Every structure is written in C-alpha cells, then in structure tokens.
C-alpha cells in the first residue's frame, strides 16, 4: 500500500522535477537536417520510474539474505560551456550480511540488472564474512519515506542555453579588454547537476537533486612602460564552486567588478621577494578555511582516525577516538569547529544522506576540546561508549555519501565551519593590529597523511604599520596543526564569516566529493615563513 503510494509520487517527481525525457528527443536533430532512421531497440529499457528500480534492488537484496541494503541511482549532467558536455548514469547496491558489506554497481537501468546487482552484493558480502559474523550495529534507522528534495536554485544551469553562457564570457572579455590597454582575460564556467534516487531496506525512499556551479573570471595586466614589474593578475571573488544555479553568475554583477579587478591586477605587480623568518600573520577567511579543512577536517573523519583509510586517504593525528574524545585537541579556547549538511548553497548540503539519515548540525571541537567525529550509521555505534558516558544519543551525523552510485557509500566530509569570535572584529582591524607581518589571502596546501604537518604556498602580502603592502613572491608557511591552532590569537567577527569550496579524495577505488568550509579571518602569532625554492 505504502509502496504503491510512493511509486506514484515518484513518477510525478520524475515528470516534474527531473530532466523530462522529452528534452532528449528535442536535441536529436539540428535545424534543417534530416532525421536519420534509428532502430529503437534499446528504448524499451528506459525506465522513467527510477524509484521502482532502487526499490526492486533493496527487495532483491533482502530476499537474498541481506540484513540491510541501500540502493542508489545517480544521473549526473556536467557541462563546461562551449567545451564539453557529459552525462553519467549509475545504479549501485550495497548489502550487509553477517556484519560484512558487499557492493555491486553498473550503468544499466533495468529491473533485471537491479536484481542482479543486489544478488551480487549479497553474495560478495557473504564471501567477505568467510563464515564469520561481525557485529555491525547500525545506529537508529532512517525514518523518512517518499522524500523529495531539490537544492533551491533560481535557474537550473542546464535550462540556460550554452550560447547565453558563451555570451557572458565574451562580454566579460570585451568589456575588460576595452576598459584599459594591456588587459588580458580568462573566463570559464562549469556546471553539474546530480539527481539521486535512493531506497533502503528500512522502507526509506527518497530523491534529491543537487547542483554545483563554478566560474572563473580573471584579468591579467601588463604594461610595457613598466615591464620590469612583470604581469599582474586578479580573479573575481565569490564565484568559486558552490551549491547554486546559473544565478550565481548572472546576478554576480560581473561587469561592475571589472574596474576593481583591473586595479587589483595592477597592484599585484608590486611584489617583493620573500624575507624569511617568523611573523605575526593575518589569515583571510579563505586561507583559514583551507587550513581547517586539511587539518582538523581531515583528522576528524572517524574512519581515518580508526585506521580504515590507512592504505588510502591516510590516518589522523586525532587517533584512538575513545581515549581522545572529551580532551583538548587544541589548547585554545577560541577554537570551535562545527559541521552541518544544511547551510544554504553548501556543497555537502542535502536533506538526507546516503543512508536516509537527516543530518544534524553538530559540534566537533568546542572551545578547543574534541567532542565529536564525522560519522555514518555504522560509525556512530563505534563511539557508543562515549555517547553513553556523556548522555548523548547514539546517532549518525548523516555523513554517508559517495561520489556517484558507481561508488560504495562511505563517510565523506560534511560542510565544516570555524565559528566566529565573540567580538565584531573585521579583517582590516586585524591587519591594523600588526606592525610588521604578513597577510595570507589564499593557500595551496601540501599535507602529510595524518593532517598534522603542512607546507602551504599562496597569495601573501606584507603588512607594514597596520596596512597591506606589496605582494610577496614565493613565500610559503610551514606549520604543525596543534601549534598552529594554539597560536590563533584573535578571530574575525560574524560578519567576516565566509564559505569556501573544498574537496577530498578517500576510499579505494578512490572517490572524490566536495563540501563547503566556512571560516573567519584570524590573527596567528609567529608563523614560519620560508622560501621553498631556496633549498636548505
């Protein structure tokens, strides 16, 4: 009864929210050209009711002996306008038998294939047990059914003609190059839409559509009268990878940004060679987001901390979680790190994770103390003794995900945030507090396998007498995570908080997912500045 109910809803959803089948038909001919005769021998396989397929898969897994199963379909469109277009389909089934997992996936959407994948996953899980039984307690089960969620965007980028996108890129180039002599431009965009249709053997069934939009608009500046200064470059802010639609670009006020971009590019030609040493530094919100993600973000993935990623993504300097939880990870009460999958436009934002859990907003580090890890249903149970000790329910934080349905679901990073300081301090006020130091605007990181030691190059500027000065060439900072976080002396206020994009690879076969990381600018005392190109 209930099943029939959501089958009907699913068909409606497929017709309303998803790419209508009709769209494909429209694309098949070009104006004025003859339509070739096509033998439609595979068309009968096209299954508009994708919910029925994932439900069939979990049913088949359960009948074959799975104690739990989930099945996912992903239908992904990608586009780099004017350059390339992509479509990926996948269906994957994960099954749990005697506490062991198995996973089968392919690209064929048919009822027989759904059943084959389910039986395969069960057989594989059974083989993994080698006759043994392992306790795999899944935390509280999903309670949703018939869910549907579409990431709120104003314009689906795939509804906007490629020609319009090319026009925007050309307009940027035309305006910028006519604005001033000596201006070069670069423009690119990329779009992704993923439709995910999922079901679990706990009678949960849902679908979600998420978007990722990204654009790069930059200018380079070179003038022949001051050739000794070299070229300068600057890129438009606020267009990094984000959970938004076409409006991120169309409503960005791009053309109005051009004078400032050119001024920034011009200023960036005034450079100085790095003067190595230890400096008090101001990190921008973006630079703090990068460091947060690659240190505390990576280190609080529970599978890494326990050694499940030892042969792949790495381990964690915050290992042996049950001993460590409740103790200081960082000796600095200023630092509070939270996680969520709910922030608007977040890259990891969803309504339900891959196990049907509605993710909660949770705290990982509270005033320096490690209070939680990123978890899935199975992983939450691993921390049960801790949760019981502090009187919290044992519950997944909803961090199960996968790059696509071709990949087995596992824990992936949620959106992460470094909470703002109590005072309304601005970036400029932080800079003004330093007499002779460095401002770190953005970073490229090289981290070790435990999220502990890093070297980062990036865009840096001198700070002289409380003001931003010349750009610093070839500077890099070296740091060890606990000392870095301990050295944070002041944080920017709420209004300085800003989201950036991040992504991380883990698992074998390797899968990559994106998430957003929010942070505020910070003042860090005595950071080592080196010139990595001048070797020891």
């Amino acid at each position, binding site marked *: 009864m209930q099943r029939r109910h959501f089958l009907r809803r699913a068909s409606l959803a497929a017709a309303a929210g998803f790419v209508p089948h009709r769209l494909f038909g429209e694309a098949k001919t070009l104006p004025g050209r003859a339509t070739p005769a096509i033998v439609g021998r595979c068309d009968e396989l096209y299954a508009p009711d994708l919910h029925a397929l994932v439900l069939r898969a979990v049913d088949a897994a359960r009948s074959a002996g799975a104690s739990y199963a989930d099945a996912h379909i992903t239908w992904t469109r990608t586009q780099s306008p004017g350059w390339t277009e992509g479509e990926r389909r996948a269906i994957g089934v994960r099954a749990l038998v005697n506490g062991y*997992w198995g996973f089968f996936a392919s690209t064929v959407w048919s009822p027989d294939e759904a059943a084959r994948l389910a039986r395969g996953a069960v057989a*594989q899980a059974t083989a993994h047990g080698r006759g043994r039984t392992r306790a795999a307690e899944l935390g509280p089960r999903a309670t949703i059914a018939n869910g549907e969620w579409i990431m709120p965007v104003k314009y689906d980028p795939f509804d906007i003609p490629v020609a319009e996108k090319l026009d925007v890129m050309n307009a940027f180039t035309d305006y910028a190059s006519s604005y001033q002599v000596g201006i070069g431009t670069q423009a690119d965009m990329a779009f992704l839409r993923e439709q995910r249709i999922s079901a679990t053997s706990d009678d949960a069934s849902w679908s979600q559509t998420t978007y990722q939009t990204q654009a790069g608009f930059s200018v380079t500046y070179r003038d022949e009268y001051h050739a000794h200064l070299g070229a300068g470059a600057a890129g438009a802010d606020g267009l990094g990878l984000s959970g938004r639609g076409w409006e991120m670009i169309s409503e960005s006020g791009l053309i109005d940004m051009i004078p400032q971009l050119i001024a920034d590019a011009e200023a960036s030609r005034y450079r100085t060679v790095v003067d190595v040493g230890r400096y008090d530094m101001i990190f921008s919100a973006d630079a703090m987001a990068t460091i947060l993600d690659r240190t505390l973000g990576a280190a609080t993935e529970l599978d890494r901390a326990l050694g499940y990623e030892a042969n792949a993504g790495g381990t964690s300097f915050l290992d042996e979680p049950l001993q460590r939880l409740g103790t200081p990870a960082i000796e600095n009460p200023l630092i509070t790190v939270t996680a969520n999958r709910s922030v608007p436009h977040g890259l990891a934002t969803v309504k339900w994770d891959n196990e049907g859990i509605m993710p909660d907003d949770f705290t990982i580090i509270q005033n320096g103390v490690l209070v939680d890890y990123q978890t899935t249903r199975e992983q939450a149970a691993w921390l049960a003794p801790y949760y019981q000790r502090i009187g919290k329910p044992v519950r997944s934080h909803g961090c199960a995900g996968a790059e696509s349905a*071709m990949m087995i679901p596992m824990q992936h990073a949620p959106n992460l945030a470094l909470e703002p300081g109590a005072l309304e301090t601005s970036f400029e006020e932080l800079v003004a507090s330093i007499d002779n130091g460095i401002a770190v605007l953005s970073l490229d990181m090289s981290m070790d396998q435990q999220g502990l*030691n890093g070297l980062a190059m990036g865009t840096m500027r001198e700070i002289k007498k409380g003001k931003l000065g010349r750009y610093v060439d070839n500077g890099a900072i070296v740091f060890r995570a606990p000392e870095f976080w301990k050295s944070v002396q002041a944080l920017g206020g709420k209004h300085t908080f800003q989201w950036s994009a991040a992504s991380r690879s883990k698992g074998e076969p390797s899968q990559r997912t994106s998430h957003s990381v929010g942070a505020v600018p910070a003042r860090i005392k005595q950071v080592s500045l080196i010139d990595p190109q001048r070797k*020891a």
Partner: protein
Amino acid sequence: MMSHDPCLREPRSLFATPSADPDGRSLSRAASQSLAERIFALMTGGGTSTVGIESRWRNNVRWARNDIATGGDTEQTTIELTRVIRGASGNASTNATADDALRACVGRAESLLMLGDESPDDYPDPLPTVHPHTEPTLWFGDTAAMRDMTLSAVADASITPAHTVQLWAAGYADAAANSRAVFNTQGLTRYYAYTTAQCSITVRDPHGHGSGWAGVDWNDWSRVQPERLAQIALEKCIRSRNPVAIEPGRYTAILEPQAVCDLVAPLVERALRRGDAESESGPFADPRRGGYSRIGQRVIDPRLTLSADPMDPECGIVPFNVNGEPYQAVKWIDQGVLRELWYDREYGLRQLGKDFALPNSEAFRLSSATRTNTIDEMIANTTRGILVTRFNNVDLLDFNSMLATGNTRDGIWLIEHGKIVKPVKNFRFTESPMFILNNVEMVGAPQRVFRPLAPAVVPALMVRDFSFTGVVDAV
C-alpha cells in the same frame, strides 16, 4: 552469459571476432564496433566524427584493522564523442548505451559544434588508418576470471601474519577486464582488450608507532604476489617502530624504486611536452636559446635512460591513445641526453612536416646502461645517509625547475658507516627530480612499482645531497 547491458549484446555475425572476455563484462571488438555504428547512425550534417569507447569490469576487495572492510564489483562503458566540421568541434560524453542516451550525447556534441568557430586550418582531419600499432600481450584470462577477489584470499595474505604479531593490516586489491576502442568516420578502427590487477598493503602498529607499505600493479594478477608484498609491509612496519627525530638537511639518500617513481613520475607526466619546452616553459626549455628545447643536450646523469615502449614485457600498455594514435617505442632521454619530447599530430604536421603524433603514454622505464647495484650495496657504501621507502603527496612548487615538496612515509632509516642504525621520523622534502637525476651515485636494477594509471619500471637510486627540509612527525 553475455554482457549485463542488453544494449551491448553482440550482433550475431559470422564475422564477429570472439570476445576476449567470454562474459562480455568488458566489451569485445564486435560489441564496441556495433556501439560505434549505432552512434555514427545518429549523426547529422556531415563532417567527421571520432568515438572513443572505454569499458571496464572491476572486482575489488578492501581490508583494514585485520578484517575485510568493503569490496565492489562494477561495470562501466564510457563513450567520448567528438564531432568536427571544418575545424569547428563539439565534444560530449556519456556512460549510458541506451538509444536515448546516445541520441542525447550526439545532440549535445552537435549543438556545441554549431556554436564553435570554423577554422579549417587549425584542425587536421581525424587520423586516417595509416599507422599500425604494436600488439603487446596485456590480456590474461586468469586475471579476467578473478570474479571475486575475496576468494583469492588476498586479504588474508597480510591479515594473518599481521594478526600474529599484534599489528594491523590494511590493503586493497582489484582485478579488472578492460577494453579501449577508437573509431572514426574516416575508417579508423582500433580495439584493444587488456586486464589489470593491483594490490597495496599498509601494516601499522595499532598505536600508530610504525607503518610499512608495499604495492604493485601488473596486467597479470599472478605477478602481483600479495604474500611477498605483505611480508615487505610487515617487516617495514616492525623495523620502523618508535622512530627518532634527526636534524633535517642534505643527506645522501637511498631511494627505493617506489620513492624514485614518486619523484620522477611528475617529470614524465608534466615536463615532456615539446610545445612547452619550445615556449620557454618547463625544465626542458633551453634557457640560452628562447623558443628551443634542450633536445640534443645532456640533461641527466649519462648512466640513465628514460624510455617507454608498449611492447616492454614488464611495462606494456595499450598501444594507442584515446585519439587512436599509436604509442611508439621512444627514448625520451638516452644515456643522459634528451632525445625526444612528445607532440600531437597538429604539431607534427605544422612543425615537423610529419603526419603523425608522438604521444606520451606516461608509462616509463628508467634504467641504467652500466652495472647496477643492490640496495644492500648502496647501504654498505654510505657513510651517513637516509633510506627512503616512498613519498606522500608530491606537489609541484615550480614547473621550470620541477621543484616539488611532500613527505616520506611508511619506513625511513638512518644509515651510518654502511649499516642501517635506526628508524627516523619522517621528513618533508623540497627537491627536484632534475637535481636527483644529476646527483646519482649508484643505480639499482629497475623493477615494476605501484602506479595503476600507467605502468612504471624504476630502479633504486643512491643520490647525493637530497634536501630534507623539515621533520614531519606523522606516522
């Protein structure tokens, strides 16, 4: 049994060649051809078209903390379509083979084509079927028949010995049946079936005091030898426990083959492009003559040769690229002298007057023409130095010098007076492969290492003055 995708069932034809993979999990020649013909039939408006088809079935198993963690069995065929009319081009890809998906893919490529500028001079016609490719043996029936990696007991090969000594084994192994096919409307038909297999193992102390690693990939699973890898990883873990910190600085370094590969691979992947070198970019641009490469000049130690050959029995690779262009046997660097840099067909036509490309498969063999030494001999000849297992996250800092940074991991030891004296804490390094290949003391016998995306056969090297720039206390 046939392919699980009914759209890919082979046509019943007297002329169809038998499938290498009897289950059709990866595409046969006939199935690839029939798929390409379905795509060509959907095209409108003339011009030329190229279809690349890659198919893969893969079965894997993953273990950690001395138990099997997950596994997977996946099948996927990806299709890449390029349409060209008078230099305007459109590109689209899909992994779905139903008619509606193919029609959509063709439609997208053709819409892009309509938006592109025509520039007949810039785009040579698609490759005609003129240059034959070699035929290395890359298909191994026993590997394709590895239906379930679990049954091979590959996980237990490291779990059992690690468990006995209270250590934790983690690892990954897979076997895959693959095919690559390229067809174009000018009559080019290329198809190659190949199997791949890999295994890598990390053995760690449960309290994080030591870590060891070993891994390798081959086309033939029977050459992977997980027991041997397990033993190496286990020994490295035991011998690396409780390392002490020593001062960073310049040391004589003995780099095991995997460590050499980790440093040299970026050179092969990034720096061998002729167009870069001739536009004053990268390590092979001649700094004294702008616009010229260093071809003909000595660039590394004269004992060393950097080469690639699809027919190399230890380093074979599918003998053509995604455009259907054949990989040739090439010595990029012959006894220290730069001889070749890769170029595409357009460069060949314009600059060299040759109607072919010299593509880079990114497979490589680094070898010595002279006597080789064992790692034991290198250690015996070291007064004070460092023995390195491998590097982690090698990131390029500067393209011109190829200066890179990263850190050592999974086993690093101090050598004094010809003997390994103690495990040391990991180091961050800042070093260029150009520098190390010019500071070679001894060269080992090349061996296949772990590089699943393109094979590599690499020797151990003993090098002077390797720059370790900081202590990294991650294990």
